[in-house]
């Protein structure tokens, strides 16, 4: 009870005070708008939809299968299927979403939609500065649609794996088609 412990404490805070002038370990603030942390490859915020090619709506990979809608723990996805079918990258006829809404006020950015999507269509974005002058929190199809290049930019490793797998499948599908086409033209 003689104040030695208190003195030790003073030494400790004093060390941190002095250290803050030369040791970056002791001054850890990142002054946000000017300084930024490197984004982590895995970081996730709200989901987005991937399109291939140049048409943000027509090129959407989404086939409106509604798996993400069912699995979303917060039930923030709403999908209305289009009636018309379009061929996908494998040439199969697939449905497309007429409406694809995500209520970002409800979305908790858990990433389960991206995890369960069998078409690699919905992925997690990395934008976090979403403040704006409007009150619109429900994002529609055209807000959500982003290119595959963008996906490659934010999640390089993951996107490369996805692209490779898709190319592989496409090759297989073409081979199948070719194989199917051969007996058809005797």
């Amino acid at each position, binding site marked *: 009870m003689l104040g030695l412990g208190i003195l*030790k404490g003073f030494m400790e805070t004093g060390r941190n005070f002095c250290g803050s002038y030369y040791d970056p370990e002791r001054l850890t603030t990142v002054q946000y708008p000017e300084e930024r942390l490197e984004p*982590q490859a895995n970081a996730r915020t709200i989901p987005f939809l991937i399109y291939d090619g140049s048409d943000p709506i027509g090129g959407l990979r989404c086939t409106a299968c509604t798996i993400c809608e069912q699995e979303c723990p917060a039930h923030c996805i709403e999908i209305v299927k289009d009636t018309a079918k379009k061929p996908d990258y494998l040439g199969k006829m697939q449905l497309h979403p007429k409406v694809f809404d995500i209520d970002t006020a409800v979305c908790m950015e858990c990433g389960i939609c991206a995890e369960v999507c069998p078409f690699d269509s919905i992925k997690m974005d990395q934008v976090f500065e979403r403040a704006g002058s409007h009150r619109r929190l429900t994002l529609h199809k055209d807000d959500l649609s982003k290119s595959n290049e963008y996906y490659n930019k934010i999640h390089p490793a993951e996107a490369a794996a996805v692209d490779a797998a898709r190319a592989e499948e496409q090759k297989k599908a073409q081979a199948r088609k070719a194989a199917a086409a051969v007996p058809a033209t005797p």
Partner: protein
Amino acid sequence: MNAPPPPLAPTGRSQTAGDLLEVSMGPHHPSTHGVFRMNVVLDGETVVKLTPVFGYLHRNHEKIAEKNSYLGSIPYTDRLDYICSMTNNWAYVLSVEKLAGIAVPERAEYIRVIVGEMTRLFNHACLAGFLLQDMGALGTPLMYAFREREKILDLFEALSGSRMMCNYMRFGGCRCDLPEGWPEKAARIGAGFESFLDEFEALLTGNEILRARSEGVGVLPRELAVNAGVTGPGLRASGVNYDIRKVDKYGIYDRFKFRVPLGERGDVFDRYMVRILEMRESLMILNQALHDLPDGAIIDPKVRLRNLRPKAGEAYGRIESPKGELGFYLISDGGPIPYRYRVRPPSLINLTVLEDMCMGHTIADVVIILGSIDIVLGEVDR
């Protein structure tokens, strides 16, 4: 709809009965660690009665989970004890694994231990920081604890994509493998944590004011602690040797060498000290786990994450979360959503003894006793 508001309760002196003063601490009080309220009856500054009031953060987590698939509940468990999402995930997936009989690959078990112990590290460090914050030290130690916590949270972000709401574990393993260089970084941060702990203790443990404030305050007798179901460091500070990592040996905890620190008196200082010592043991486990980390699959490929339909039956799984025994009780009726989903919240049950611990102490002690119990309102109110 527009009923007239109830007449204003008389405030201040007029409400005192005799010599007693009834004070409502919370829900908007700086040191109730969230929206928690205590109705305290004071004689001078001495507590003669204390009634905790819960439910300000109640969202019926259990009902939500009973309407969601087994997979869909994992992100919700993150939000129970929002400081330690990894251990919440773990307790839940452990219960589902028990319920459905799912095996976990070895590598995933090791990763679970690593992230679980890291969670314990920063939880205890932050708690010790909060303890001094509650004593009025302007949060200096808290800032140091947060500094170290940030480093671990960065690791968690690199691993799972999110700092606090990790949503990382899955029944049958973990969601994704460790990124390149992660174990090395983790080892480095573990080593740094060791020296941080030394500094932290230099600032706190010997401090005469801290000792004067915490010794003999909020004593929790051993028998009461057991009977009231107190778990975690609070229980061990009272001298009861009960650590679920040792008792249940869940996961692969039987492979690690670590000790369970026990207190003698069960006062606030013991609860603080047991946590500090536990952090050192956690570092030992962390080093062993990082050293032995095997290669292999991260998740059982056979497991169905979507549409899991366990056989009808029930299971109770529990782990030693940083707060105490975190358990999940699941009943399946064979369908894709749990029939009954129950969280055994250590924070809530540890609060059972709050009144007993606070009796006869002053209002200033109530704050640090509450702090030393370590509650997170996301878990208390669910």
